[in-house]
């Protein structure tokens, strides 16, 4: 279904915002003086303030998006992701450069932004779809689908102020995707709603792409981005840092995020700390097979957690526990020394221990360590590090995107027989 046609084209687009928002008479006089001196004119011909205070949200950004494709947009906060969507949806205009779009654009920068709490769900469907340019007749035809997808049949004739925020968002999303768009812009809106709705929403976006629509998808959840988009645009401080096949760019991005995390790890250990303190972790390090500090591990590779501790008094049979927590979902796998002979019966002073995972049977996601030291009965916590070092599991040699959910990579194989004999 995909063709060579271009759905969105940005050509050397720069967007500046004024930094201050209040302009007073004094500012106006000042800028008039500036202009009289021949200073460069402000971008806002209508409302000139002081020319100096501007924030550059996008600098010289150019890219094309092919019709019928999904493009993920990633980057830190303030990288210009939302500004991109606002330019494409015509909510705002570029300071310089050109934004071109083919077809009808529906933006989901905030779900149900056009709804009014005093109106019923039904009235709001018409109002919201109207904001996307649909006529009453067009909404009539889609109405049942919209309501069904949002699962609000029971409440559709109630004022929306009685809706929960999740329902509100569901109806907003539903109206948008049934508004017959050619291009859908999604900005981190799937964070609301329950898991089942999130899944259906993602599924519906996928279906739109399969039908030849174009989807731009901003999310911090790389997992979802990769499931939906075949290409990724990485924004960094208003510029395109990289763009290309989703897997490749996601890897680069993760590596950079992890490098940054590594630099912060020692300070991170000191925050989020609890426990009585008779014995504490002094340092925690993640190392690879060759013993070098790292923050990313290849799928199926090995990982060692190397920890040193300091005991201020002799501690009888402490239990060291190291849990690996999936950053996105909070799901955890834990190891503990309690049932083993790994640790001597009494520890005192400084010591070190290593916990070796070889192979590390985890999928490609981001993880953090939660580490505790407790007494033998696990009633007293001597030390609790809730946000220990972070690491990521990255693609192995294969490089195929992992489609599966969950984070433990169980070893398995399929066996297939061509013919099943019925008994």
């Amino acid at each position, binding site marked *: 279904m995909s063709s060579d046609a271009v759905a969105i084209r940005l050509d050397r687009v720069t967007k500046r915002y*004024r930094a201050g928002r209040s302009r007073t008479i004094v500012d106006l006089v000042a800028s008039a003086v500036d202009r009289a001196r021949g200073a460069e004119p402000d971008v806002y011909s209508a409302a000139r303030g002081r020319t100096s205070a501007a924030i550059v949200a996008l600098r010289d950004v150019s890219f094309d998006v092919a*019709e019928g494709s999904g493009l993920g947009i990633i980057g830190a906060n303030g990288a210009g992701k939302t500004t991109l969507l606002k330019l494409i949806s015509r909510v*705002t205009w570029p300071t310089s450069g050109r934004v071109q779009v083919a077809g009808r654009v529906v*933006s989901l920068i905030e779900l149900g932004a056009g709804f009014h709490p*005093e109106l019923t769900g039904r*009235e709001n469907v*018409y109002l919201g779809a109207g904001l996307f340019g649909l006529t009453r007749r067009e909404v009539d035809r889609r109405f049942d689908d919209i309501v069904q997808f949002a699962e609000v049949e029971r409440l559709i004739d109630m004022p929306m102020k009685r809706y929960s925020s999740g329902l509100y968002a569901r109806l907003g999303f539903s109206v948008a995707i049934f508004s017959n768009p050619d291009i859908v812009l999604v900005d981190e809106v799937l964070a609301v709603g329950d898991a089942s709705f999130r899944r259906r929403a993602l599924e519906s976006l996928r279906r739109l792409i399969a039908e030849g629509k174009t989807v731009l998808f901003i999310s911090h959840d790389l997992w979802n981005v990769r499931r939906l988009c075949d290409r990724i645009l990485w924004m960094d401080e208003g510029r395109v840092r990289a763009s290309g096949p989703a897997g490749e760019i996601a890897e680069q991005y993760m590596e950079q995020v992890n490098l940054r995390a590594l630099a912060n790890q020692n300070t991170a250990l000191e925050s989020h700390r609890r426990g009585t303190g008779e014995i504490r972790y002094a340092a925690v390090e993640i190392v690879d097979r060759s013993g070098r500090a790292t923050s990313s591990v290849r799928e199926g590779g090995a990982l060692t957690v190397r920890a040193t501790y300091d005991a201020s008094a002799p501690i009888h049979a402490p239990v060291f526990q190291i849990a690996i927590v999936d950053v996105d979902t909070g799901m955890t796998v834990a190891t503990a020394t309690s049932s083993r002979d790994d640790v001597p019966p009494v520890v005192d002073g400084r010591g070190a221990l290593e916990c070796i995972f070889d192979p590390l049977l985890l999928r490609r996601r981001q993880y953090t360590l939660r580490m505790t030291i407790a007494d033998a009965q696990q009633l007293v916590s001597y030390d609790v590090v809730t946000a220990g070092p972070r690491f990521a599991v990255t693609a192995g040699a294969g490089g195929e995107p992992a489609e599966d959910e969950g984070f433990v990579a169980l070893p398995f194989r399929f066996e297939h027989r061509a013919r099943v004999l019925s008994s």
Partner: protein
Amino acid sequence: MTTASAAARPLVDRAAPIEPAAYVELLMNITRREVKGRYSQTLFGVGWAIAQPLATMAVFTLVFSRLANIVADVPYPVFAYAGLVPWFFFLNSVNSGTMSLVQYRNIVTKTYFPREIIPLAQVSSRAIDLAAAAALVALLMAYYGIGLTRWALLVPALLVLLVAFTVAVTLFTSAVNVFYRDVSPVVQIGLQLWLYVTPIAYPLSKVPLRWRGWIAANPLTGVIEGLRAAVVYGREPDWALLALSTVLTAIALAGSFALFKQLDRYFADVI
């Protein structure tokens, strides 16, 4: 499934215009949203639309007909009320219209649609108030035994002129208010003064000749004098005055719409 993808859509620089039907329906929907928002959880509802000109009429009757001794050829309460009905339509539209884009900030910064629909909806949402208040004109006239003449057929055309001028002012004040919130207090003060330079409490014929030209240059003068002539007096309006109003209104409307469209691309950035 979609055969349309074979014929590639062209890349364009501007947002695709929405269908006229969708435009009108969106206007109606936002109007409904306004009306519902305004009158939900009030006891008196649209009755407030009548109370407002009625109270002012009472004051005017006391002050102008007794103290200032303004004599009209018809009972003064009818005279004043018939002028106050269009005036309050104008006043309320402009007042709420001025703040409307700022109030709809949430939509303006998040989706694209023709922005002028928001101030337009403020004007159209006042049509209900106008209708309710106008119904009382009929009651008052019946009470004082004043009948309608064929000149009453001019009323729709005069209302079009009233709406056109109201839209012109509202588009202007709402757009500029996005950039300078000072506009709102300025508008409120301005409207208070405007009431007195419009022949509402008094007829234009009682204005001293040397000022009459200035009062006539106010487009509302033609509209209100015209409405009063057509309905209350049942006679031919002053065509020259009406022509002047029409020309000024057309210029104001064209100018403020053009300005609005120039400014609307910056709304989301500064609002």
